[in-house]
């Protein structure tokens, strides 16, 4: 086997770019806390609705400009429904599904996470810009999937 001179060069440049690229991803993931949402906690789908975490969930202030909110993603709605939060606040979302897999996507933000039954998903976001955001389910979850959406109004 003989590797052509130029091919060696080509592969070396490619590997070099790849290493830089992966290093950036690694720094973002491990040092800047920008890793993808990866919460690992289980919950029984059949009891999500009655569970301590999710029953009577409401937007709760936990600090200055900081809120937490538990949301049930179910066929075909997010509960609680439409929300209102003050501009500039950070919200920590906790999500679970009592039925099938759903997606949780907030338009015009990078909030995007899968809600798989049996697991709890977590994701946080700071809403600095006022406006009406659309929360939509972006994983097919049954024949009413396209109706699964709410709004968050940031004032």
């Amino acid at each position: 086997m003989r590797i052509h001179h130029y091919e060696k060069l080509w592969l070396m440049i490619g590997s070099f770019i790849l290493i830089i690229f992966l290093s950036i991803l690694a720094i973002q993931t491990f040092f800047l806390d920008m890793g993808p949402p990866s919460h690992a906690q289980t919950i029984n789908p059949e009891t999500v609705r009655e569970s301590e975490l999710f029953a009577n969930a409401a937007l709760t202030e936990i600090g200055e400009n900081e809120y937490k909110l538990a949301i049930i993603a179910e066929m075909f709605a997010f509960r609680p429904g439409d929300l209102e939060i003050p501009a500039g606040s950070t919200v920590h979302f906790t999500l679970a599904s009592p039925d099938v897999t759903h997606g949780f996507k907030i338009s015009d933000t990078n909030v995007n996470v899968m809600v798989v039954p049996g697991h709890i998903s977590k994701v946080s976001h700071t809403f600095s810009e006022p406006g009406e955001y659309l929360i939509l389910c972006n994983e097919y979850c049954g024949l009413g999937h396209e109706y699964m959406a709410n709004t968050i109004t940031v004032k």
Partner: protein
Amino acid sequence: MAHVSELPTRPTGKVVDRDTTTRIPIEDVRLSAANLSIAFLALLFGGLAGLLQGFVRSGYLELPSWISYYALLTAHGVLLVLVLSSFFSIGYLYAGTSKVLGGLHPKTIGFGWAGFALMSVGTVTAAFFILAGKANVLYTFYTPMQAHPWFYVGLSLIVVGILLNCVGMFITYQSWRKNNPGKLTPLFAFFSNAVFVLWVFASLFIAVFVVGLVIPWAFGWVPTIDPMIGRTLFWAFGHTLVNIWMLTSISAWYVSMPKIIGGKVFSDSLARVAVVILVVANVPGGFHHQILDPGLSVGLKFLHVIQTFMIIFPSLMTAFAMLATMEWAGRAKGVTSLLGWWKILPWKDARFFALIVAMFAFIPAGLGGIINASNQINQVVHNSIWVTGHLHLTVGTTVMLTFFGVSYWLVPFLSGRKMTKVLNRLAIAQTIIWASGMLIMSGAMHINGLLGSPRRTADTTYGGHNAAADWAFYEMFMALGGIILFGAIVLIVYIWTQLAFFAPKGETDFPIGEDFSEKDASPLFMDRWSIWVTLGVISIAIAYVIPLFDFISGHNPGSLPFLMF
């Protein structure tokens, strides 16, 4: 020359003299042709579903109440990514292997037909339940959504049929090796064997999932199922499928393209290295579909990003080899200017034209893949219609145009006919129409995805919410691209029918590039698949043991079924 069916004995175990025999035994022809016919039908029906989807999504069409958008989308996915790709890869690789190894082993024919029968029955069963509205679960059938149990039985028949075909291929490959000690297998056969090794990896994952977990649960023998195990096993299969059709496609680029342009294989040994990397390193790439899943740690996800990016090496090697092949072909014809070789490529030969457009489509397709797999950016595009745009560039353009290009020699090769000038011109037009339709449709999908429009959604107006206001404009282009594409499907079906039944009789060659120059021969151990399979299993284990063990021991309470019909 005697017609093959009149040949006294079937040539097995010896390389057939290429100059005197261009055709293969009639049994092999029949088997290959049968597989290809189903692939072509799948394209026609799958494409029709796609056309309707584009219209429904953009609001131009309302479906009758007996069929839902999601039934169409399920049919589209199953027919195009599972049925089409498996039948085509079998039909094409069996024919080519028969050509380079001098006929398929008689046992291979037996396994081939048995596999074909199971796969066909499976396809019809699955299609029936999809169209009857009893399997609105999409081709990924994520649990705990549940379809009619017989839908899953249909799918598992397809998988078992594929496994039988794998056995068939291994028999021919190994018997050739036994009869030709000390010889390296021809490059095309090496590619075929690699594809079928990947089929085994892929099929085992999906078989464990469907047969081991889903079917008992769908028939109600087991009450619950763990959806995360399902997603993980599904994507171990799904991503391997991607490598299967890429490897099938690049076999034509590496082996046949050089012959078509009148050149030689650039480097037989480097081609084999690229193949081996794809087989060994890339199965775990499937995890990049789960970057936003719960229950997998950030560190593990990063490991999977690295494993996904292993695909970059064979891709870079392929890019280099293709351009080098083309340049050398030109230089051999006496071109001395820097880029003169580019101009004298056979642009007017549809076989070449389809392949090179396919290769060019892979540039944006590959870049999109790097974006999707990059951990953080994935959050921007995951489950948006950008992803659908991406896969119409990869499998929809790169792979499909390669399959079309292959069919321009494969179909007449099997039917004993010749491509006419008119058909060649139509085929060039078909390539241009297909590429422009995909450019429009997939371009619009990419843009809409960045604007936030979700994939797999029948209606994206969201009650007129202003976040969704910009999407309609691009959905119009998705529908427009769909019309163009469907036109191209009608055209290719016409070309295939002509090539199969009506074109003038004659000899068409299956182009096989000059195998290797002696000094560039690979070491013989390249043919020892036990090495590559072992390494592949290790790489799979590195990726999958931890998460699967976590899920199994993680006390996930499991999910009851939710019927999707």
